[in-house]
C-alpha cells in the first residue's frame, strides 16, 4: 500500500536536493555541481542527524553492556542489520556481516577461500573489475598457487559472454564479478552469470559497490553466494559496508580477524568462535556508521530505488546525447546496459587538466584511472574523466557539465 503511494508521487529533485546540505555551496564562486558520485555520494541530513543523535544520546559499546545506553546502541546496530537484510532481501539477518566497505568484504571472503583453494585451482574475474576485486584474488593466488583467469570485454565495455563461459572449467573454484563497472558504467547480466557458474557448482561473489545505489538487488532471486557493497556510495557514511553471504557458506568460512566480539569462549588453550555474523565482526565495530547506513537505507526507501534509477537513467541518456555533440569528446564505455556513469576523454586534453578546469567552474568530476588500470590499458588511455550521477543531480547540472567542457576546450585552443 505504502509502496504504491510512493510510486505515484512525482519525482521531486528540488525537494531531494533540500535534504543534502553539502550541495548548497559555491566552489570557486560557482554553484557546486557534484558529479563524482561513483567515488562517493553526498549524505542526506537524515543520515548526518542519525550520527549526531547516536553520539548525543546513545553512545555505548554494543553486545556486552547491560546498561541502558549499551542496550540502545545494540538495538540500533542490530536494526541496521535487519534493514540491510531487507534491502538485499536476504533470507536471514545472520547472512549480513558488517565490514568497513566492499573492499574489506571481498578481502574477508578471499581470505577464507585461501584456506580451501589449492595450486592450479582457478579464480575467474572479469576485465572490468575495480582493483578491489582484483588484488584480493591475486593475493589469494599468491598464497595458494591458484591461477587468476580474466574474462575479456569488448570495445563497448561489455563482458564477452561466450568467452566468459569458455573460461569455466573443472578447475574454476571461485568467481568474482562486478555488478556494475565503476570506470565504464557497464552492468553485467549477473543473474545469467550466476546461473551459469552454479551449473558448475562454482561459488560466486558479486561486487555491488557501484550497483547498489542504482539497481534493486534481491540476493535470493539472484542466487549469488556473496554480495558486497559500501555504504558511502549509497548515501551512508564512509567506513561502513556489508557482506551478504549464504548462511551455510559463512558458517563454513574461517574468521577474518581475531579479537573481541567474535568469540564465545577464550582460554589460553583454545578459543571458540561466535556464530555468524559475529564471527566476522572482531573488535568494536563502526557503530555510528552502521546506524548511519540504516538511516541511509530508510532515506533511499522513502524515495524508492526504482524512481531514483529512472531519474538517473534520464540524466545519463541526456548527458550521452549532449556529449555526442562535442566533436573532441569520446565516450569510454558504451554498453547497452549501463548505469549513470559517463566516462570520457577529450582529444588532446589530459583528464587531469579536465579535472582541474572543471573544478574551477564548480564542477566536481573524477579524473584518473578509477582504480581500474587494466580497463584503461584496454581502451589505450592513461586515464579518463568521469561524471557520475546520483538521485539529486539535475538536467541543468548536465548542461553545466557540457558548458564546462566546451569552455575548457576553448581555453586549450
Amino acid at each position, binding site marked *: 500500500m505504502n509502496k504504491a503511494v510512493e510510486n505515484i508521487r512525482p519525482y521531486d529533485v528540488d525537494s531531494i536536493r533540500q535534504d543534502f546540505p553539502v550541495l548548497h555551496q559555491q566552489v570557486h564562486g560557482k554553484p557546486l555541481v557534484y558529479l563524482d558520485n561513483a567515488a562517493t555520494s553526498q549524505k542526506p541530513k537524515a543520515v548526518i542527524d542519525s550520527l549526531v543523535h547516536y553520539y548525543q544520546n546513545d553512545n555505548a559499546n554494543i553486545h556486552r553492556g547491560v546498561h541502558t545506553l549499551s542496550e540502545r546502541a545494540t538495538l540500533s546496530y542490530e536494526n541496521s542489520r535487519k534493514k540491510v537484510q531487507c534491502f538485499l532481501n536476504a533470507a536471514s539477518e545472520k547472512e549480513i556481516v558488517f565490514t568497513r566497505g566492499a573492499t574489506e568484504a571481498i578481502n574477508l571472503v578471499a581470505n577464507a577461500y585461501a584456506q580451501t583453494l589449492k595450486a592450479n585451482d582457478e579464480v575467474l574475474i572479469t576485465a572490468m573489475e575495480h582493483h578491489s576485486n582484483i588484488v584480493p584474488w591475486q593475493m589469494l593466488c599468491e598464497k595458494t598457487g591458484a591461477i587468476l583467469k580474466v574474462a575479456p570485454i569488448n570495445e563497448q565495455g561489455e563482458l564477452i559472454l561466450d568467452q566468459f563461459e569458455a573460461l569455466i572449467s573443472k578447475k574454476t573454484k571461485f568467481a568474482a564479478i562486478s555488478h556494475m563497472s565503476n570506470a565504464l558504467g557497464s552492468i553485467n547480466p549477473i543473474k545469467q552469470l550466476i546461473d551459469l557458474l552454479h551449473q558448475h557448482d562454482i561459488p560466486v561473489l558479486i561486487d555491488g559497490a557501484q550497483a547498489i545505489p542504482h539497481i534493486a538487488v534481491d540476493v535470493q532471486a539472484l542466487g549469488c553466494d556473496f554480495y558486497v557493497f559500501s555504504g558511502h556510495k549509497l548515501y551512508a557514511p564512509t567506513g561502513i559496508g556489508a557482506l551478504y553471504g549464504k548462511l551455510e557458506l559463512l558458517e563454513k568460512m574461517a574468521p577474518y580477524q581475531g579479537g573481541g566480539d567474535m568469540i564465545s569462549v577464550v582460554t589460553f588453550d583454545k578459543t571458540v568462535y561466535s556464530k555468524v555474523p559475529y564471527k566476522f565482526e572482531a573488535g568494536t565495530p563502526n557503530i555510528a556508521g552502521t546506524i548511519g547506513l540504516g538511516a541511509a537505507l530508510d532515506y533511499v526507501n522513502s524515495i524508492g530505488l526504482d524512481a531514483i534509477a529512472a531519474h538517473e537513467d534520464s540524466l545519463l541518456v541526456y548527458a550521452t546525447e549532449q556529449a555526442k555533440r562535442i566533436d573532441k569528446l569520446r565516450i569510454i564505455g558504451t554498453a547497452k546496459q549501463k548505469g549513470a556513469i559517463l566516462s570520457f576523454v577529450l582529444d588532446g586534453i589530459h583528464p*587531469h587538466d579536465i579535472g582541474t578546469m572543471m573544478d574551477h567552474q564548480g564542477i566536481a568530476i573524477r579524473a584518473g584511472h578509477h582504480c581500474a588500470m587494466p580497463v584503461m590499458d584496454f581502451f589505450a588511455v*592513461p586515464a579518463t574523466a568521469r561524471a557520475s550521477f546520483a538521485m539529486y543531480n539535475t538536467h541543468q547540472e548536465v548542461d553545466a557539465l557540457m558548458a564546462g567542457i566546451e569552455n575548457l576546450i576553448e581555453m586549450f585552443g
Partner: protein
Amino acid sequence: MLDDLRDLYQEVIFDHNRNPRNFRVMEDADRQIDGFNPLCGDRLTLFIKLDDGKIIDASFQGQGCAISTASASLMTDIIKGQSEQEAQQLFALFHKMATGEQVEMDDLGKLAVLAGVCEYPARVKCATLPWHTLDALLKGAEEPVTTE
C-alpha cells in the same frame, strides 16, 4: 570564465603541451629511466647523454597532463649544457617553488611559469614527476621512479 586559471595554465604551458620540446626516444642515451605517478597513471621515460659530467642531451617520451608534459619539456631544455650538480641544484630549487616555498624566481628562469602549481596541491606531483625522475637518474637509479 576560466581567466583565474591562467596562473596555472599560462600560454607557455599550453605551447609546451602542444609542441613538447625534446619529445623523442634517444637511441644512444647514456642513461634512461621510467618515472611513474601511480596516483594518476602518468608515465614518462627520461633519456640523457653525458659527457665529462655534463648533460649534453636530454629527451623524454610518455603520456601526461599539460602540466607534466610542459614541465618535462621545459626541464629537458634547461638542463642541456648543465653539469649533473647544477641540474640537481635546479631540481632542489624547482621542488621548493612547486611546493610553495620562497625562492628567487630569477634563478628558475623559464621554469617560473610553473610556479602557479603550488596553489593546486593535487597537481604539484604533475609538475615534479619529471624532476624526481631526473634526480633518480642522476643518482644512478635503474628501477622506475614513482612519486609516492
